[in-house]
């Protein structure tokens, strides 16, 4: 057992700041992501979710402060085999078939190409896959997990948007990551598929001890997470279990809780801005 598997925290950020272009996109984040389980990263479009995930994956330039991932500074080479990062836009080769994509990424990750002994990943398959034909190798298993077995031979360019993002997700299931960072993995998928994927995410977390950090702006997915990080405009708005957040705000749903927190934050901002705008109004009149 390595050090990281004993640490109760997978990601630890302190005063994390990121500048992109001329704008400070992350304005001093402090949070931890617990080891194991599914943590949701929620916030409006443009608030910095992708930027934060890129920082955790170690590919975001101009990040300051502390960001520790699995006990090491983010971006350490030793972390590369341990993190699976799924980008928001599907990152697969459009001029390869789904299977060829997975075979390439599997080779990069050092996963043996076809090992019957590894027919199923340690966490088992989606129910649909278990019923299907006997699958061989991690590639087949990953295809089954995202329900793309029937499209394995199709060019990625010929897939629908949702199919393509599932192909991109399948890549992250190939290796044996300790941390999965998934940027809006369920956007544009139908409810049945979404339920299947959330079951898979929980199985990864529960049976295999994988930590999942999943971003979304679909609030009804928040209740599927064990813990939530709510972001707004580059800052952390709140952090806790869905139940805690509802209780703290007196709201019935996480969506409502989020909206109340946003309104409170807006009010606080407005109070700060009021003097400025009064001064500006005075000038212009």
């Amino acid at each position, binding site marked *: 057992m390595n050090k990281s598997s004993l640490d109760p925290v997978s990601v630890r950020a302190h005063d994390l700041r990121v500048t992109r272009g001329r704008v400070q996109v992350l304005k001093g984040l402090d949070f931890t992501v617990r080891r194991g389980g599914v943590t949701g990263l929620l916030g409006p479009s443009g608030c910095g979710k992708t930027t934060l995930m890129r920082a955790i994956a170690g590919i975001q*330039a101009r990040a300051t402060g502390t960001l520790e991932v699995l006990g090491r500074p983010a971006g350490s080479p030793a972390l*590369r085999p341990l993190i699976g990062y799924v980008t928001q836009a599907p990152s697969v080769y459009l001029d390869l078939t789904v299977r060829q994509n997975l075979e390439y990424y599997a*080779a990069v990750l050092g996963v043996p190409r076809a090992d019957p002994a590894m027919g199923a990943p340690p966490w088992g398959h989606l129910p649909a896959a278990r019923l299907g034909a006997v699958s061989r190798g991690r590639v087949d298993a990953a295809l089954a997990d995202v329900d793309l077995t029937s499209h394995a031979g199709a060019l990625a360019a010929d897939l629908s948007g949702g199919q393509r993002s599932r192909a991109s997700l399948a890549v992250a299931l190939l290796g044996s990551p300790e941390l999965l960072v998934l940027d809006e993995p369920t956007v544009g998928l139908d409810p049945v598929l979404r339920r299947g994927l959330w079951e898979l995410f929980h199985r990864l977390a529960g049976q295999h001890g994988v930590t999942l950090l999943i971003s979304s702006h679909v609030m009804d997915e928040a209740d599927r997470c064990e813990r939530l990080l709510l972001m707004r405009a580059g800052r952390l708005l709140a952090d806790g279990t869905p139940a805690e957040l509802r209780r703290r705000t007196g709201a019935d749903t996480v969506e409502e809780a989020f909206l109340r927190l946003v309104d409170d934050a807006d009010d606080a901002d407005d109070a700060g801005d009021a003097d400025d705008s009064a001064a500006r109004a005075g000038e212009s009149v």
Partner: protein
Amino acid sequence: MNAVLSPARSLATARRVLRQLAHDPRTLALLLLVPVGLLVLLYYVFDADRTSFDAIGSSLLGIFPMVTMFLVTSIATLRERTSGTLERLMTMPLGKADLVAGYALAFGAFAVLQATLATGVALWLLGLDIAGSPWLLLLVALLNALLGTALGLFVSAFAASEFQAVQFMPAVIFPQLLLCGLFAPRDSMQPVLEAVSHVLPMSYSVDGMTQVLRHQDITGDYVRDVVVVAGSALAVLALGAATLRRRTD
């Protein structure tokens, strides 16, 4: 830069690049047939002057692989940068050297095919008359392809779009074409240009082809040419690897 090269990951990358190419039969056909077509064209352009056909034809056999591989590689790596696949690879245990080596292997292998076909047609169908061995021509052609791949990789770092990438071709390749000795002997050029031509790798590839055209045996100049072209290709490949950034804005 990641100094360790993983043969398995480099080979997997080469295989992936070739598979991508295989899904694009039109590009494949163009890459293989355009050089042959141009040689045939040249043959009839110099209908009454076979010596010129020999001289220019043998030089072109070296220039084709460099130009085509330059274009193909710069577009391919630009796509890799813009499609998010490079971003994703950079989160994985893939060394930058693995990626660069993969591209070089794939396009190098493809260039062997392209150059073999073009050289075969030139020598046996069009009667291109060389004193030396066709293998020596092929070696220079292969090294030129690697140089083209290396330059393509390198410039793609400075291109934000396909439009820009294509414009690098006249910017990077044409000056070398003008100065390589194909249009005018290098020692007859304005002295500054002549000096410049001494540091441009294409001058050495064209000279290498000319050595094979004129001499039956391997000459000292040929060896020097091969070393210079191979050395430039390796140096530019290393530069290309250095332009790959794991962390981006």
